[in-house]
């Protein structure tokens, strides 16, 4: 081993150099992560939480819930939609102008960002939707999540 001949001090100094640089990289990564998270993390509210305290609708707050079945009203522009969001306990009417994702269907998990308008409707500027069948979540009783087309009454044969 060639390093042995240089003596223990030389070896240690070399290892120290690597250690310092390695730790530097790790520390910078961690630091950057903390900086990024401190500015960008946004908290979700459930519909019930928002309805109970609408004044908390500050910037960086999002509301998540489900699209209430049958509540979607799409305008002809394809860019305006109103619907009712629910979390099972509370409901909130939403008005949204913007690009409506294809995953926005009855029962879809949605996240909105925006503010409460004077008429009690929530004016959303961001709408994210996750199709319920996409991630195969399960309902409380262990049944797989029904597909969005499942809940329509089936022919009785």
């Amino acid at each position: 081993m060639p390093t042995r001949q240089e003596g223990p001090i030389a070896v240690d100094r070399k290892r120290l150099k690597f250690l310092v640089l390695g730790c530097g990289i790790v520390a910078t990564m961690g630091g950057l992560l903390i900086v990024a998270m401190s500015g960008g993390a946004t908290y979700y509210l459930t519909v019930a939480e928002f309805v109970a305290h609408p004044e908390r609708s500050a910037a960086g707050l999002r509301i998540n819930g489900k699209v209430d079945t049958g509540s979607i009203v799409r305008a002809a522009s394809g860019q305006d939609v109103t619907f009712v969001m629910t979390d099972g306990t509370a409901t909130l009417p939403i008005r949204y102008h913007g690009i409506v994702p294809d995953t926005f269907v009855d029962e879809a998990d949605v996240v909105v960002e925006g503010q409460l308008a004077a008429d009690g409707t929530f004016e959303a500027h961001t709408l994210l939707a996750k199709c319920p069948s996409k991630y195969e979540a399960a309902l409380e009783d262990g049944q797989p999540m029904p597909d969005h087309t499942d809940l329509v009454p089936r022919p009785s044969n």
Partner: protein
Amino acid sequence: VLRDLTNSIGHWGLFVALVCAAWSVVAALLGARVRGRGLQLSAERAVLATFGLLSLAATCLVSGFLADDFRLDYVYHYSSSSQPLPYKIGALWGGQAGSLLLWVLFLSAMSSIMVWTNRRKNRALMPWATAVVGATTTFFLVLLNFIEPPFLTSAMRPDGVGLNPQLKNYWMMIHPPCLYLGYVGFTVPFAFGIAALVTRRTGDIWFRTTRRWTVFAWFFLGTGILLGAYWAYIELGWGGYWAWDPVENASLMPWLTGTAFLHSVMIQERKGMLKVWNALLVILTFSLSIFGTFLTRSGILSSVHSFATSDIGPAFGVFLALVFFGSLLLLVSRLDSLRTEHRLESLLSRESSFLFNNLILVGMAITVLFLTTFPLLSELATGRKVTMGPPIFNLVNIPWALLLLTLVGIGPMIAWRKASRENLLRSFVLPGLVGTWVLVLLLILDARAYVAASGAVLTAVSRLDVQAAFSALKTFYPAITFGLGAFVLATVTIEFWRGARVRVLNYGESAGMALGRLVWRNKRRYGGYIVHVGIVLVFFGVAASGAYQIETVRELAPGEPLQVEDYLMRYDGYRLVAHDDYFGAEATLSLFEAATGKPIGQIETEQRFHPNMMVPELREAFQHVKALGASKSPQYGDGVAALYRLVPLLERQAGREVKTLSTEVGIHSSMSPLAASRFGEDVYVIPLAIDPATGRANFRVFVNPMVNFLWLGGLVFVLGAHLAVLPDARERRRLDAAMALEERSVAVA
């Protein structure tokens, strides 16, 4: 009756497969202790039998799809009688049970190949490796037999629900199998790694034997990620391809650590260093592969609470914990056999550049892991949901990705042990100049923007606002990416040129022949360089399309023009259609050069409505209109328009939507080298709405500069990876010699 029989064959086939897989573990473990091959042979045959039985079960399920056997719950959920044939087959992995079945089928196929190719080799490692792959197979078969059985049946139903329309895309059909091959492929290197640790044969045999497995898994995972991005781009219609979605992250993490592993084993191969690190990386990569499957399959993503009620989530959690902590414990207990043979000597050496590339790759993987799981941890700890948006991921990862790009240029060129001044000058002066020249040129071309951005960076720094500093720094990323990319491309070019020149001078070969032979005789090395070129192209595509994308939304009447950047678009007209399982409107647009009026091409884009076949009136009306289309009836167009009117009526009646929407993106890619300034650029159009009566349409238009570099880079990556994985006579001789040496040394001991 035949269908009943098929379903029970599939059902019981899975059960017998479980028994076989479990036996392979038991027999392999016993066989490792007992002398003689009897038990080992039995274990290996059990592995082969498992594969046979799983193929049988998968065939049974596919036949259920082909026969429209809607008694099978799985077929009912993911297929329908009007679903085109390829999607009936692809629906096999449209849901949970089928995905798991495909996963374990791939795993048992790979185990069988592993067992077969090693039937006369690696006899000391094989029992343990067989036990590890057997145990993984057993776990997935337990899930398939007891928690998520694919062969559940109910009463016959008239038709199926059908696959989610967004999944009906050829790329989406091959994207999951690709990813699964990647996830699964890492099992074999992991199994050999564990075998090496258990038997204390911690030399380089275990990863050299599995090097091609590693490249294979890494290649499929990488290709799967790119296919997923491509699918998102052409199908989802938001103009982008990567959103730091947890499912995307799940596949990226093992790819990053797998990349680190591929590089760091070179150091162990050459210098006998980093043994612990390599064992750790293979454990980490396999654990992240399982974790990726877990993330996408357990339902934990929608919420921790749905995880608790999900069926396979807890089982996965236990398995994952066993794999990860068990392997770590084993690793710790074997630390004494993992002493390094050399120490790092200089910061300026290939060893240390690889070490830093590893540190960054693993650091990025852990960062992504942390950000992906943080919302779950936060929900568990505080009960509040939190989201980590793409800006956070970008802020953290882009600077490191750029540093990594620098190392892509440095790593392969810098000397081993300690780089001399001469080596540094010879390898890096010219590429460094090229890179700097590109960077400076780009800065000058858009000087005003960069001066403003520098000002913003300085202000932010003076206020100690790190976040603002980084977001102002964003302006510089594309220029830096292009500068660094040019540097890497220059180093690779020089490497090819020097190698070929030696052959031309020494053997008198022609330039083309010399280049070809150079690559063919050193497939691993030059394959690696080609992969690096692919990665640089991917960086270019991401940098330019991410920073310079243009978006417009505009409502147009048929015949109306629209100018976007230096393009002139004209909305020519629309057509109402009813096909397969949808009806809708196709819009045609013509594209011209704005300055000259020269025609460039046509764009077709569609808005589709997928009627819910469970509503009898809608189903009948839709079938009727489709029949009108098939018979070329003049009433076809009116029929489709009637469907448009029928849907809202039925929706009011049913109290819910009876259609799902999907859009077919229209893309025009400029790939002609004659229009150099637009090379690789896409004009990307989606209709937000098309009025069936008047044709007035609301279009969303993107211009995505250089986005095709991303896909081109992917193709280059595929080429390079193929080259690197081809059999290499020289490598084989070396491996055989190393194995013979190891066998002798063990025999002596």
